[in-house]
């Protein structure tokens, strides 16, 4: 311990090689020395994803924020998150001792003020890291210092006031820090501060994208279905189902106040979808003539307009392109439901996702990606459902899932993650897949969740508890 300053290098290496130490949150899968050895080996093989090191700190009050950020960075699937063996620092720069209180057993963390931090960049580069993050707390302000290893300097220091841990806003505030870190590192925002709405036991719930803070957002005696976000993240629409009738509502996230959508509820109205400007709500209406698509002017809550006249076929499940110029939907005109597309006024209807007549199974539940390039949907394959993605430009489809039954995909705002319902674990629950890496993780380990809807990046106001 005496060599805290001058002997940092030797001590750090010793820690790497010898200590079993406390586990870091990141490294849940790495619990044995053998695994660590494998990990270290990987470090010397450059991956396609940038390596990311989250510098450990033994600072009271930050562990929670630190683990939230670590998980967000991991769940972004954009980095090779490098786990430091031993859970302790191999940081080599040492300025002033960190303000550790009551941690007699604290390891020789080489921490200090973020502003003064410098790293042994060549060592981190040798470990395969492209970025290193140092997270410190100054009062109620978190300082996230992102180091660019190759450039040998600080890329950006992000300061954010955090509510006290446990406060309703705390986790969302931390998620926003994580999103800024990702933005600073890669130039693209993260999906930390997002949530997923879903239906369980006839009620609408929300859950943070990292699986935390599940909360009831809409409950009545009637059965809820089909939640759908407005693109501002401040409202969502959903359907209440009772005795063969379906009524649509628009509910404000912050206040919980809900408004019935005009003309709905007398027939079976379902699958609401906001236009990107949130001025229009498209939905399906089932009558004795069959099921067809309609729109309502949300601004004035009026002016029903019919988009399709199916007669002997059904048209349902609308989803707007992000530019608002197209609506993808399901039509049974080929006999079985398949994915079609049209102009938002109902003209220019055409097949969207190709299929083999008489071979391809039913295709349903389309959702247009936020970047406009893809439409996710599910398709019946050999009697069960699988998630597919249509490439809008080439109009080709690819199957994403094959294990178990997988349905109702919904896009994350980064257009590379999808949440969906799967029974791959034995019962139906929510999962998330990264399209680029194929990595799949459970979002909610509870049975019976369905019809998920992933939010856009949420504005600060909506993160408050209704």
């Amino acid at each position, binding site marked *: 311990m005496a060599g805290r300053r001058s002997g940092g290098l030797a001590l750090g290496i010793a820690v790497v090689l010898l200590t079993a130490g406390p586990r870091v949150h990141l490294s849940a899968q790495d619990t044995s020395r053998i695994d660590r050895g494998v990990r270290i080996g990987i470090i010397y093989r450059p991956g396609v994803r940038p390596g990311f090191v989250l510098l450990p700190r033994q600072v009271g009050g930050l562990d929670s924020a630190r683990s939230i950020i670590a998980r967000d960075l991991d769940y972004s699937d954009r980095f090779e998150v490098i786990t430091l063996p031993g859970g302790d620092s191999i940081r080599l720069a040492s300025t002033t001792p960190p303000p550790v209180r009551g941690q007699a057993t604290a390891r020789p963390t080489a921490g200090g003020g973020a502003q003064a931090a410098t790293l042994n960049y060549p060592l981190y580069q040798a470990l395969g890291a492209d970025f290193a993050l140092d997270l410190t707390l100054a009062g109620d302000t978190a300082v996230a210092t992102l180091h660019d290893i190759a450039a040998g300097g600080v890329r950006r220091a992000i300061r954010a006031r955090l509510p006290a841990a446990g406060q309703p806003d705390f986790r969302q505030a931390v998620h926003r820090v994580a999103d800024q870190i990702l933005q600073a590192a890669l130039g693209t925002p993260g999906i930390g501060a997002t949530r997923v709405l879903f239906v369980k036991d006839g009620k609408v719930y929300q859950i943070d994208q990292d699986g935390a803070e599940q909360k009831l957002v809409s409950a009545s005696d009637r*059965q809820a*279905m*089909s939640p759908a976000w407005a693109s501002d993240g401040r409202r969502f629409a959903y359907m209440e*189902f009772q*005795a*063969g*009738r*379906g009524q649509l509502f628009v509910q404000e996230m912050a206040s919980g106040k809900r408004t019935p959508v005009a003309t709905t509820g007398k027939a*079976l109205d*379902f*699958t609401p979808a906001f236009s990107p400007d949130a001025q229009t709500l498209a939905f*399906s209406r*089932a*009558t*004795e003539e*069959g*099921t067809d698509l309609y729109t309502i002017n949300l601004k004035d809550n009026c002016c029903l307009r019919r988009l399709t006249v199916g007669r002997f076929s*059904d048209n*349902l*499940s609308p989803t707007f392109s992000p530019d608002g110029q197209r609506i993808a939907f*399901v039509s*049974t005109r080929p006999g*079985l*439901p398949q994915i079609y597309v049209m102009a938002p006024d109902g003209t220019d209807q055409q097949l969207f996702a190709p299929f083999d007549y008489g071979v391809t199974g*039913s295709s*349903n*539940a389309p959702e247009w990606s936020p970047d406009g390039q893809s439409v996710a949907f*599910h398709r*019946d394959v050999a*009697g*069960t*459902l699988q998630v597919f993605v249509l490439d809008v430009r080439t109009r080709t489809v690819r199957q994403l899932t094959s294990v178990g039954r997988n*349905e*109702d995909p919904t896009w994350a705002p980064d257009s590379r993650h999808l949440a969906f319902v799967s029974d791959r674990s034995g019962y139906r629950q929510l999962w998330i897949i990264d399209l680029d890496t194929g990595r799949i993780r459970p979002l909610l380990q509870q049975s019976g969740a*369905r*019809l998920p809807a992933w939010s856009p990046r949420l504005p600060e106001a909506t993160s408050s508890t209704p």
Partner: protein
Amino acid sequence: MKPVSLLFVIGLGAAVVAAGCGKKTPQTIAPVANADSAAAAERARADSAAAAQAEADRRAREEAERVARQREADSLAALGRNTEAVRSTLASMIHFDYDKSNIRSDDAGTLDQKVAILQANPELRIRIGGHCDERGSDEYNLALGNRRAQAAKQYLVSHGIDGSRIETQSWGEERPLVDGHDETAWSQNRRDEFEIIGGGDNLHQP
């Protein structure tokens, strides 16, 4: 005298038959006592005819009432049984193939029975609820259930039932009849249910 009386008796018999009673027993009419004078005879004959006619009318009326009473008695006696039987027939479900909404040929007979019941009970109004199994898409099944209810309604309407007597509903896959995750359960859950919503207190057999 004789031929007239005979003719009269025959006529009376015919009248009785014509009254619709279908009664086979011949009527025996006591001849009116002979009068000496032709006028008396004529008057007696007229009286006799009138009396006979009145008697015939009375009997015909009684018989009609008896038949009506019998019908009513039959109906009352069987009413509970009949109503239950009719309700049971009416409630029998029809089933569908996976992802289909066409009426299966083996269900046409079931629907024909409902046509007959609806025709025999003009006040009867029903609601058809279309259901799906859990295999399909949750939201699409709302449209499919609607199609299934409409398919049964269209069948009934095409067989002469007024469409205003039939409501339809879709339940999608939200109300399975049988829990289970195999074809045995699914095949029972892909169904139309039939429910009486009016005029179903006393139901007549077709």
